[in-house]
């Protein structure tokens, strides 16, 4: 008999994060049309299983570094929902007091140290998090989350080499959604083999179904355990799919850069329903429990949105504050 990969506590944690990300992203997608969130916003609808699993596999003191498509890891790592939505509205209660908007979220109090609007920028920075942990003899792990196109940047390779050379406690998580804006990976990369590039840097590379939250969680848990025990870095390639447009709340399959058929196939592999089916069939969580979790999240998200909308803008004098650290 194969043993159950997760227990009820883990199932509950995974489901809570998964649904939190889905509900919040959908809420943003609807509110965005009001044109009051005046910043470029990259939603991760369809890809939620990756950040949810990654966040669940980490301790609060582990580090994570991400991209402009960062709402998922921000929420999964435990960042404040109110502060994130306030940031999207450019309000003083926002994560960075309105300085950075959606693209550069942070939550240092829970280990989310940096996100970047420049593709690939935070991959080496995450390696630096691992270096610091190792130098101080801590057992923290540092995680870099990035898209498939980021592996085309030189820093991806430079970062992997150094992390492997020094056996740093790092996990590289690539969310391969096959597109860089409108360009398919086959027009950008010589082969569809991101996870195999780890081998060239003498480290472990795995490919997982990024819409299967349990698969991502298992791969992540193993990589984290190896990193924490001094075994060095792992590269995880999680294959998934972005449902909405690259940047913004709309649907854009009509532009013709990808087929409606392809999108439909991926949507049938939808991560939330898939996990609901799994946990109920495995009797880890009941349908009632799932509903309760979702209802609580929907309520919490609506409350946070109201808070964000009603909170004040930063004072004009803040323009020139915070350029240098005190």
């Amino acid at each position, binding site marked *: 008999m194969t043993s159950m990969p997760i227990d009820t506590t883990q199932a509950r944690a995974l489901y809570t994060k998964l649904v939190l990300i889905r509900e919040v992203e959908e809420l943003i997608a609807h509110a*965005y049309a009001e*044109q009051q*969130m*005046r*910043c*470029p*916003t990259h939603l991760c609808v369809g890809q939620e299983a990756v950040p949810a699993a990654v966040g669940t596999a980490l301790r609060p003191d582990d580090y994570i570094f991400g991209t402009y498509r960062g709402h998922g890891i921000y929420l999964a790592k435990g960042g404040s929902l109110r502060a994130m939505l306030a940031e999207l509205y*450019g*309000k003083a209660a*926002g994560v960075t007091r*309105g*300085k*950075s*908007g*959606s*693209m*550069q979220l942070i939550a240092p109090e829970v280990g989310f140290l940096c996100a*970047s*609007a*420049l*593709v*690939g920028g935070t991959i080496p920075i995450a390696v630096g998090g691992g270096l610091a942990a190792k130098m101080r003899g801590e057992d923290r792990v540092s995680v870099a989350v990035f898209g498939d*196109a*980021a592996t*085309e*940047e*030189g820093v991806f390779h430079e970062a992997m080499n150094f992390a492997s050379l020094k056996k740093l406690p790092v996990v590289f998580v690539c969310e391969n959604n096959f597109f*860089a*804006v*409108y*360009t398919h990976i086959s*027009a*950008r*990369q010589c082969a569809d083999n991101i996870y195999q590039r780890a081998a060239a840097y003498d480290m472990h590379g795995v490919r997982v179904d990024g819409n299967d939250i349990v698969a991502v969680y298992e791969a992540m848990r193993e990589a984290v355990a190896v990193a924490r025990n001094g075994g060095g870095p792992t590269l995880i390639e999680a294959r998934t799919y972005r449902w909405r447009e690259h*940047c*913004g*709340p709309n649907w854009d399959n009509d*532009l*013709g*850069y990808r087929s409606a058929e392809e999108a439909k196939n991926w949507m049938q592999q939808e991560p939330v329903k898939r996990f609901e089916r799994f946990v109920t069939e495995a009797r880890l969580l009941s349908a009632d429990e799932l509903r309760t979790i979702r209802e609580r999240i929907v309520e919490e998200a609506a409350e946070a949105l109201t808070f964000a909308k009603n909170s004040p*803008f*930063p004072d*004009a004098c*803040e*323009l*020139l504050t915070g*350029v240098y650290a005190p």
Partner: protein
Amino acid sequence: MSRLLTYAQALNEAVSLTMEVDPAVFIIGEGVDDPKGIFGSTSGLKEKFGDRASDMPLSENGMTGVIIGAALAGMRPVMTHQRIDFTLLALDQIVNHAAKRCYTSGGRQGVPITIRCIIGRGWGQGSQHSQSLHSFFAHIPGLKVVMPTTPYDAKGLLIASIEDNNPVVFIEHRWLYNINGQVPEGLYRVPIGEAKMVREGSDLTIAAVSYMTLEALRAADMLAEAGVSVEVVDVRTLRPLDDKPIINSARKTGRLLVADTGWKAAGFSAEIVARVVEELHGLLKCAPRRIALPDCPTPTTPALANNYYPRSVDLVAAVCDMLGMKPDRPFAQATTAVPLDLPDKLFTGPF
């Protein structure tokens, strides 16, 4: 024959025409052949020229090296970046390699590449998508740096840049993309290294860079109503800088105001002031002034970004001050219908 084209259409036509006449020209960049075609400036090129108009991996530094090599081997590449911020990844190839090749080859080699890049602005583009980095490039011997304002100049300067045997950093501004202007059909060149007087006046000179030229012209209109005559010079090329028209104008008016899209500190506006003062010290009626960005990165929230970008009203206030005038009525911004983080009504988020 000339017709009304947008800035984006003018850029598109420049590339298309040079590709037609010179098989060595090709264009490569992230999104060149995608459905949005770099805000329309590369639309249709793939259909017309096949692989000579191509997308590229997200490898800005490596791909810049690739076009430098192709140029050394006889091609005439054009690269596009949707934001000038992305050129920062390629600074090694641009500054250490492309800019040095001619000199370090004893003048035997040129690197005929054109690097098109767009300065972003508005809708919370923020600190990493709206930098105005022209001063950076203008600092480097071996590079040419152009910043056209009008559709006419965009086309003529882009053709001249592609035909030039040196690396040209061709800097566009996102807020110019939708403006219209008369553009002749066919190939024509606007010479690199020529500033242009775009409005004649006698009381004060505004030397303006890129989009700020439009704000300067708006300011000049407002000031004309108050009886102030402002001359406006569009710098157009930052390197090699054609300072004569600016110096001549300042000699005539005795007053210089510089309007730049970039930061003030160590910025291009300082170079213009220095050139003028070096020539005209003692002849100016008041100290030169600069209107440029405050000393901080771009914030995303409109609450702060609204005070970040100087506008025509700020130029008007500076001019009045330089002339010792108290404006007898407030020069209200006429365009309250459009939010300040958008260039015009056609524009909606997220881009």
